[in-house]
């Protein structure tokens, strides 16, 4: 895919994950002794990471591919985009947490240890996310995706209530089982690649891409199925989404924004890395992904309609929106990838905005999340309501807003691949998406 670009050795792929990881570990280890070593340190670390992400984006935009640690780490345009979205969103979410987080905690929970756990884990998560994006080794990709799950599990159960414990338990078990399947897919692909590539080259995604058309079809299809089930679980792709609504609803509001904006995108990224290497040569993968993705978008939004809890509504809409993203990535064409990745960025922006608005509503109403009890909110909280409506219109794909452009690209990409039915389901879903969100905000 990126053979024509020039690979340059650089320190950026190393720094981009080492800085937040070290920050996270420092905050976890020393955060309880001084306030300075908690919020300020974590925020500084993530701000520096965001700057490094911007620098690497600048490099990759100039057409260079950054490699580090031999060829273990490799950052191209796709990696830079994800690193940039993840690092910037996490820094913003950390800033938002400062006031939002303590309010929902009980008196005895507000200890320095608890806060250092929170800020440390968020920074550690960003480190693992960036490692995922910089990893070129397939098994390393699996390891770091799993590590992002482990880093966020304790954030989901942060309030330590019955519901959040259940949600966290479900999240851990389901995603772990899914990712074990993904590891199995890696093993199968690696073994098949070994016949054609020397030793460790067969683990490198960049090398596998070059020989993807020569691999045995059985193995590729089986590995692709395991990748879709495994990384699809992480991405909240239907029917592997069972953990997602609970985890999104029961996590603290800033973590819901992080989960929907960034964490599930890790799964989408891993799918993009593995499936897009294979999809161009194996058409059944494209059709399979398109069916799953279309079913996901439609069922996701229908389930969202049935929710009274504002956070669950947004969570199901995430399931639906991930359908759009995965469909674009699964098409494997230029337009499909462009649309899918554009939608990754847009969804991160507007879904995080929506979850933060809900966080603000919970903050000022003392914990009310039920839509039926939130009448007349527009008058009491005009700014929040205005932001929510902008986010809701964007997610519904209203023209002039970002969601419109990425969805339009995705419909065109599906039509171009003669998947007209998928384009039509996408459009119907998009029209349906306008209603629940908007009524939610205007009630």
């Amino acid at each position, binding site marked *: 895919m990126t053979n024509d670009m020039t690979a340059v050795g650089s320190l950026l792929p190393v720094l981009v994950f080492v800085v937040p990881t070290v920050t996270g570990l420092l905050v976890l280890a020393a955060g309880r002794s001084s306030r300075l070593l908690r919020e300020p340190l974590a925020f500084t670390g993530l701000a520096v990471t965001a700057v490094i992400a911007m620098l690497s984006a600048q490099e990759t935009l100039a057409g260079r591919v950054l490699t580090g640690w031999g060829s273990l780490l490799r950052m191209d345009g796709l990696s830079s985009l994800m690193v940039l979205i993840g690092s910037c969103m996490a820094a913003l979410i950390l800033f938002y947490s400062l006031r939002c987080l303590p309010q929902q905690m009980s008196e005895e929970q507000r200890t320095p240890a608890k806060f250092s756990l929170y800020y440390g884990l968020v920074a550690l998560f960003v480190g693992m996310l960036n490692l995922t994006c910089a990893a070129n080794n397939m098994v390393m990709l699996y390891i770091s995706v799993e590590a992002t799950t482990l880093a966020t599990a304790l954030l989901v159960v942060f309030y330590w209530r*019955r519901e959040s414990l259940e949600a966290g338990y479900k999240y851990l078990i389901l995603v772990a089982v899914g990712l074990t399947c993904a590891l199995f897919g890696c093993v199968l692909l690696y073994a098949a690649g070994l016949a054609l590539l020397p030793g460790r080259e067969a683990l490198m995604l960049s090398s596998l891409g070059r020989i993807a058309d020569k691999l045995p079809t059985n193995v590729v299809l089986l590995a692709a199925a395991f990748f879709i089930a495994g990384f699809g679980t992480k991405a909240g792709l239907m029917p592997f989404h069972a953990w997602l609504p609970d985890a999104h609803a029961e996590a603290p509001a800033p973590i819901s924004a992080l989960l929907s904006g960034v964490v599930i995108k890790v799964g989408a990224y891993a799918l993009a890395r593995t499936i897009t290497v294979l999809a161009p040569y194996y058409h059944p993968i494209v059709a399979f992904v398109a069916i799953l993705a279309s079913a996901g978008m439609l069922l996701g939004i229908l389930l969202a309609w049935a929710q009274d809890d504002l956070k669950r509504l947004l969570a199901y809409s995430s399931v639906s929106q991930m359908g759009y993203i995965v469909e674009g990535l699964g098409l494997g064409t230029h337009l499909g990838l462009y649309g899918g990745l554009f939608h990754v960025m847009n969804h991160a922006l507007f879904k995080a905005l929506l979850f933060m608005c809900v966080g603000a509503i919970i903050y000022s109403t003392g914990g009310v999340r039920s839509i039926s009890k939130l009448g007349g909110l527009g008058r009491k909280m005009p700014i929040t309501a205005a932001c929510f409506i902008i986010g809701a219109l964007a997610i519904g794909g209203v023209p002039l807003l970002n969601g419109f452009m990425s969805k339009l690209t995705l419909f065109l990409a599906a039509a171009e691949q003669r998947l007209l039915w998928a384009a039509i389901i996408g459009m119907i879903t998009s029209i349906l998406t306008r209603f629940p969100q908007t009524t939610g905000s205007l009630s």
Partner: protein
Amino acid sequence: MEKLIAESNLVISLMVMHLIASLAAVELRHLRSAIVALMIQSALLVAIFVVLAYLTANASLYQWALVSAITKVVVIPFLLWRYSARLPQRELRPLVSFPVSVTLLGIAVVVVYRFMHAHVDFVAPTPEAMVEPVRSSLAIAFTVIAMGLYVLVVRRDAIKLIVGLILMENGVHLTLVGLAPTLPETTLLGVTTNVVILVWLVLYLTAGVYRLLGTTDVTELSRLRR
């Protein structure tokens, strides 16, 4: 390779013992006995790694064996043992009764093993995978993965679910060693560290759930939500 083929009986007997230990870990209803069975299962896995390393003169497999011995035979059983002290010792009644479960599992094991042994070329079309004992090892590895999945589907006890998860992981690691025995050390450490942290986190949450709800029944968890 010749040495490996000559000693294929040794490898296959270890594999069969590994499979029997897996069955015990699945079916024993006393949780601590199941944990011991799991530990024996992992120890046999390590023994298989060592034998394969010796027979194929593959030094990187010794590293696999060492890391697996520390994590799978010592750390994970220790964590399970310690956390299970605070939990009920008897497994919660599974969704299927003991005789039905053993029969089902027995049939499943035979079917999966026979099928995978006959069709190894479907998942691993390499000449190395076709010869014994690699062929049988792969078939047994797939069977262990299937057993792990079975536990995750029919069991309600949180500790048993962890046992199922570890069985799956062990099976995948065995396939990894069978199909591609040259993994770099960094990835090897990463894979095993992840499993240890995962098990610890799940146990930590299980203990939390038990303190708050007084149960380790995972079907209860989804019922309480609605």
